């Protein structure tokens, strides 16, 4: 793969061009983020004209305020618990479903339609019945209740499916001849060969549950059970006007996601490039 693309852009002039384009893209991506970080360090009013490019008297006070104005550690723990449940269940359920979808079986088309249809229903619009059902289940005010609607993110099933389809069927057939049961096959053969898909699953499911807002808003009443995004609304009460703290808070919320991304990207995608797919 790499070798091929190396040939695409085999001289250094091309390489410099690629870097230039990427630097330009990075610049566009980073400018709004730079303002976010800058404001979190100074708390200045962004509507002051002309805009100042360099932060004046940067400090970390806004981050300190974030820590004190909400029970940050508690919310962080709640968010983490929910996200871990979601990530694990997503890998288990989605890899199973993805594996199944690679094979043909009666009713497969219908199931795909159900999946696609399910994504199509905006969660905002089905939130009331979902809430009533969760109440029936006795899961209001629990971590499990928060995690349940995100137990399997449909997009991720298709990520697995796409990845599993790329695995040579000869590999699976030979394993079947060896008498390996299906669940072992998922665990032993297909999953290890689908590291990018696992990485995508981890990143996505973590992200969705970490940022999920409307659902926890409705099913959580206990203050000790709140998650980080819910903390944001407490911020609005304190700091709606001085946005420094809001930005500091969003940076603290996003930091774990970025961390998970960086770590999983390097260890999954990175190892993939060393030639994990063997024919």
């Amino acid at each position, binding site marked *: 793969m790499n070798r091929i693309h190396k040939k695409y852009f085999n001289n250094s002039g091309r390489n410099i061009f690629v870097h230039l384009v990427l630097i330009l*893209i990075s610049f566009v991506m980073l400018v709004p983020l730079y303002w976010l970080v800058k404001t979190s360090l100074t708390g200045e009013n962004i509507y002051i004209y002309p805009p100042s490019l360099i932060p004046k008297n940067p400090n970390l006070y806004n981050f300190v305020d974030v820590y004190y104005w909400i029970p940050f550690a508690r919310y962080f723990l709640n968010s983490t618990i929910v996200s871990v449940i979601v990530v694990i269940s997503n890998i288990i359920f989605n890899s199973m*479903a993805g594996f199944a979808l690679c094979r043909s079986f009666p009713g497969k088309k219908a199931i795909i339609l159900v999946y696609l*249809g399910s994504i199509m229903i905006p969660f905002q619009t089905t939130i009331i019945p979902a809430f009533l059902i969760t109440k029936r289940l006795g899961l209001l005010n629990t971590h499990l209740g928060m995690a349940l609607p995100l137990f399997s993110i449909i997009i991720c099933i298709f990520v697995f499916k796409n990845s599993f389809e*790329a695995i040579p069927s000869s590999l699976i057939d030979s394993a079947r001849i060896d008498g390996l049961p299906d669940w072992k096959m998922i665990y032993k053969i297909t999953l290890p060969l689908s590291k990018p898909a696992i990485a995508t699953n981890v990143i996505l499911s973590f992200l969705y549950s970490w940022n999920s807002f409307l659902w926890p808003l409705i099913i959580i009443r206990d203050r000790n059970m709140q998650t980080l995004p819910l903390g944001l609304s407490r911020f609005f009460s304190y700091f709606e006007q001085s946005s420094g703290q809001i930005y500091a808070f969003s940076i603290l919320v996003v930091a774990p996601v970025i961390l998970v991304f960086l770590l999983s990207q390097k260890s999954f995608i990175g190892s993939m490039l060393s030639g994990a797919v063997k024919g």
Partner: protein
Amino acid sequence: MEYDLPVPCVFAVYRIIPMFWNLLLSFKKWNFLSANIWVGLKNYNMMIKDPVFWESFRNTVIYFAAGSPTAIIFAILMALLVNQNIRGRNTYRSIIFLPYPLTTVAIGIIWKWLYNEKVGLINYVLRSLGIIDKNIPFLDSFNWALPSVIITSIWQVVGFFMIIILTGLQSIPEQLYEAAELDGASPRKRFYYITLPLLKPSIFLCFIIGIINSFTMFDLVYVMTNGGPGHSTEILVSYIYKNAFTFSRIGYAAAITVFLFLFLLFITSIVNKFSGEEAGGVNYYE
């Protein structure tokens, strides 16, 4: 296939049962408290006559039709760039992905300022460079508001699409390229005949996510414009939400939901067909 069972169960509880409930509600009048009154097709009738509904519908379609393909094309280009063996490609990947996980509220506030007519950075830069001589009221005009919001959403989502495409790129077996090379296919041909077809599942996924985004970017719309000016940035889901929770017209909101569901199912089946059925599944070993 027994491995497929647990997932539909979760969906049954959280998506499918609620959807039927919604269907039932769309024939009723309800406001969380009063008794359910059966009103027949009145809600649907009201919907057809409601100009705001049609405007939101149009916006949703524009949002999807303009936003998703643009984002996907950018994402493919970026993925090809960062898939090369160049220095610092992990850094580039991370930077491009960075906006996606950010809290929408924070993004909304920053972009609102970027777009500001009088003191915003975009106008400031454009004017300093001499590209424009009169400031553009991005969010404060009927013509610019929707494109502006779409651009922001592309900015946020493109890194995520890139990751999905990248995952797809890396599952393409190297032998295919080697074989093509032996056959003497040019790089361009290799891209059109190997990379692109085999990326189909990933592109399909991006489209699906694009469809979802065209109605879940509702918090971004809420923060940036709250649907205005007029209803020029209102999308169906924000209108549904407004009707349900602000106007307390649950039955009406349910009717729009049913319409939206059917419409999106239609779109998805088209996308599915174009991507070769089975959710873009490809089996190149056949």
